């Protein structure tokens, strides 16, 4: 088969796929009354769980099995990056990038901003059931603070201060604790994923059954996982 024919066939297949995507959206665009009824059901779910944030009530409540599996996918991806980049060696012709000394203003600003960014990540995770945020976004925000520090003062000093073994323990400890909380109700003759903590008063920090601990554990997992990915790329490149 000639190259132009193969390219034409690929383009036709891609166009067909895009047309199918557009057609599905065109027909399924409007929810109508069924959508309104479903939204009311989600609101009831949030009230039952004691969370103000309805999105949290879904991904840490009724669809938490889905979130757990996504966390497992994330864990496997992080493990893959760590394994393959840990093995990889730079080709002889590729020289690692020499660390560039940032100006004192940038490094001082980064040192000042780092605790504020990490604190914002923790706030997003802790208040995830009351306001916009949650474990996933909180973890990524905190990891972006470390990336800023790595840009300003270098990845090696940041890695040294954090301690790699401790981070790995936090990452896998968080994952094990999530799985433990998921399956702990079995010991009490309850189905897995059942909430163990009381619902509390809607709008208070101590509310939302298991949502608060789940958010904190997910934030820890995502924080360490995201930093691990970034740190391995930086290490492989030799600096930033």
């Amino acid at each position, binding site marked *: 088969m000639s190259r132009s024919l193969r390219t034409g066939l690929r*383009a036709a297949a891609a166009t067909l796929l895009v047309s199918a995507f557009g057609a599905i959206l065109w027909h399924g665009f409007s929810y109508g009354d069924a959508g309104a009824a479903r939204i009311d059901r989600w609101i009831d779910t949030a009230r039952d769980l004691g969370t103000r944030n309805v999105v949290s009530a879904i991904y840490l409540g009724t669809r938490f099995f889905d979130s757990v599996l996504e966390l497992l996918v994330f864990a496997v991806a992080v493990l893959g990056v760590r394994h393959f980049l840990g093995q*990889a060696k730079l080709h002889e012709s590729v020289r690692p990038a020499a660390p560039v000394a940032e100006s004192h203003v940038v490094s001082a600003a980064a040192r000042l901003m780092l605790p504020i960014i990490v604190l914002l990540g923790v706030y997003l995770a802790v208040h995830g059931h009351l306001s916009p945020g949650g474990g996933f976004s909180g973890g990524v925000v905190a990891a972006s603070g470390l990336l800023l520090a790595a840009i300003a003062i270098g990845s090696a000093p940041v890695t040294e201060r954090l301690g790699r073994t401790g981070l790995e323990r936090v990452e896998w400890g968080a994952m094990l604790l999530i799985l433990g909380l998921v399956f702990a109700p079995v010991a009490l003759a309850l189905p897995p994923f059942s909430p163990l903590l009381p619902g509390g008063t809607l709008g208070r920090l101590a509310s939302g059954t298991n949502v608060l601990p789940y958010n904190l554990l997910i934030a820890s997992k995502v924080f360490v996982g995201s930093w691990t990915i970034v740190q391995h790329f930086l290490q492989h490149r030799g600096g930033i």
Partner: protein
Amino acid sequence: MQGPIGIAAAVALFAIGTLGLVLRRDLVIKLLALGLVNTSAILCLLSLDAAPGRTPPFLSPAFTQHMVDPLPQALVLSAIVINFAILALALVFVMRIVEQYHTLDSQRVEHEVEGEDA
């Protein structure tokens, strides 16, 4: 971006991403195109129930009327992090391929693999 405009933008991004994924031979460009497809799916999910006058999905007296559907937002929340991790892993695989075959051209890699098998 709201409603139909968001959907139209998502379809356009999906088209650009899919064509890039299928037609471009550079593996890094393919990954960028895959990222574009991911982004189009996220934009599409968020635009599905977005319309003027819809309120954020929070239990608050100010927001109980005409709340936006929270389900697509719940799906998107974890999808963003997963996309990041999967793209990072795919980039690592591309780096391994480049180390082994010294090229980013997907067709040349295919020929090299066929040559190894033969």
